[in-house]
């Protein structure tokens, strides 16, 4: 039965195996328990990986486009849950999380400007140069497209991005490197390797309550803003030790994120803030590498990476 379950999890079960699996489950209680056990672990791992959108109507674009009825249901679910938490919950952290998720999922193009709060603003590169985080900009679109622009010392810029299909990196006047590896070139985004996926902040929040203590309060400087503070309960768990999110009370829009406890091994910042600096729309092709270099620049397509 394990082979059949494995085929099922990979979406490749044959009709013959499907029938055999049903017969086994129909007649064998122990097999049903085993099936449930394996499916549950698969579900928890999928959930933990953030691959399950919870309250976001735009999470399934194909469904959204193809079936208005489904879209209506999904949108209604998001609104009902979001507003329910907002209106009636004396648990302000839960309400804040719901509101931020809803706003993040609805967000169009936006730009965050990075400031270094602690540590070295410059992070050394292997080739002797260094890359700067102070005043770097992170442009976001949807759940998979980004452009991160950082300074390069002794001169130029490091521009890293993804158009949702491939990731790419341009260092100074060097060649454009392109990879279809989903994680390639993402290390430059603060917190990305510490389980802080800016592109998929909804997933982060969906699992945040499991590992972090969440509190929310009004911002002392601006009553229109609220501050959601997340502090990790157990230092052995993955993720940054502390994160804070400043968001608009009326819309849930995250206007500032502060990340503390970035890893020190490779130098560079130990704490950064990302402040919403623009919500202007970018050109359609802005998140492709073509928009960031001259046409004659050499483009190098990397082979698939072997992970250690």
């Amino acid at each position: 039965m394990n082979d059949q379950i494995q085929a099922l999890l990979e979406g490749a079960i044959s009709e013959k195996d499907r029938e055999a699996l049903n017969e086994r489950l129909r007649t064998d209680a122990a097999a049903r328990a085993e099936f449930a056990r394996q499916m549950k672990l698969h579900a928890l791992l999928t959930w933990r990986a953030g691959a399950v959108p919870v309250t976001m109507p735009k999470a399934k674009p194909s469904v959204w486009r193809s079936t208005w009825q489904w879209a209506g249901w999904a949108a209604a679910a998001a609104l009902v849950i979001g507003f329910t938490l907002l209106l009636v919950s004396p648990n302000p952290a839960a309400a804040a999380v719901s509101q931020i998720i809803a706003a993040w999922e609805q967000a169009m193009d936006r730009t965050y400007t990075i400031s270094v709060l602690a540590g070295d603003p410059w992070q050394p590169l292997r080739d002797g140069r260094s890359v700067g985080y102070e005043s770097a900009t992170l442009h976001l679109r949807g759940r998979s497209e980004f452009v991160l622009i950082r300074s390069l010392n002794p001169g130029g810029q490091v521009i890293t991005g993804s158009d949702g299909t491939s990731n790419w990196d341009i260092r100074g006047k060097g060649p454009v490197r392109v990879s279809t590896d989903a994680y390639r070139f993402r290390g430059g985004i603060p917190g990305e390797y510490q389980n802080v996926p800016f592109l998929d902040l909804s997933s982060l929040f969906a699992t945040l309550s499991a590992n972090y203590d969440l509190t929310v309060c009004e911002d002392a400087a601006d009553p229109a803003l609220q501050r959601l503070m997340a502090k990790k309960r157990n230092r052995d768990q993955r993720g940054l030790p502390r994160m804070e999110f400043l968001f608009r009370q009326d819309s849930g829009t995250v206007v500032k994120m502060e990340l503390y406890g970035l890893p020190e091994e490779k130098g560079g910042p130990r704490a950064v803030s990302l402040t919403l600096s623009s919500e202007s729309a970018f050109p359609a092709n802005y998140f492709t590498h073509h928009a960031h270099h001259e046409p004659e620049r050499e483009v190098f397509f990397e082979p698939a990476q072997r992970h250690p």
Partner: protein
Amino acid sequence: MPDQLQTLSPELVQQITAAQSSLYAFILTLMAGQEGAADVLQETNLKLIRELHRYDTSRPFLPWAMTLAKFAVMAWRTRQSRSKLVLDNDVVGLMAEELPDSQDDRELAALESCLAALPARQRELIADRYDRGQTVRAIAARLGQPENALAALLYRIRKALHDCITTKLAQEEMA
């Protein structure tokens, strides 16, 4: 609807939030891992909100929520063509009856520490399969290993994680 919303207690709001991963696991099991479990969870959440006034707060929340989730799965099944369904109706009925109640989001917390205790290579394999969403076939091809051997290893890792979670939750219960 607004009147119903106003009567929601903070405990119920927290219970809905905490039940999300367990409901997803329940739904995914009844759907045999087929695509669409997230949509069915959305629909279940909507039903939960709409039906909360019927919930008897003296009884455990999760079994009640799972009943609504089961109805949502059945509704999803009626929208699918028969040839696309993996499990037969009677098998789904049996599974729904027998699935044990979950432990809310405590399971996720236990999973986190169990993952941390895995050997690095196994942790990386789980990251490839789930965090990076790669298929077993793709991982096997990249690592140059037989697909069935890798699938068997993943099975053993998942089993070890399940045992670890069960042990941790049992320890929590006794503490």
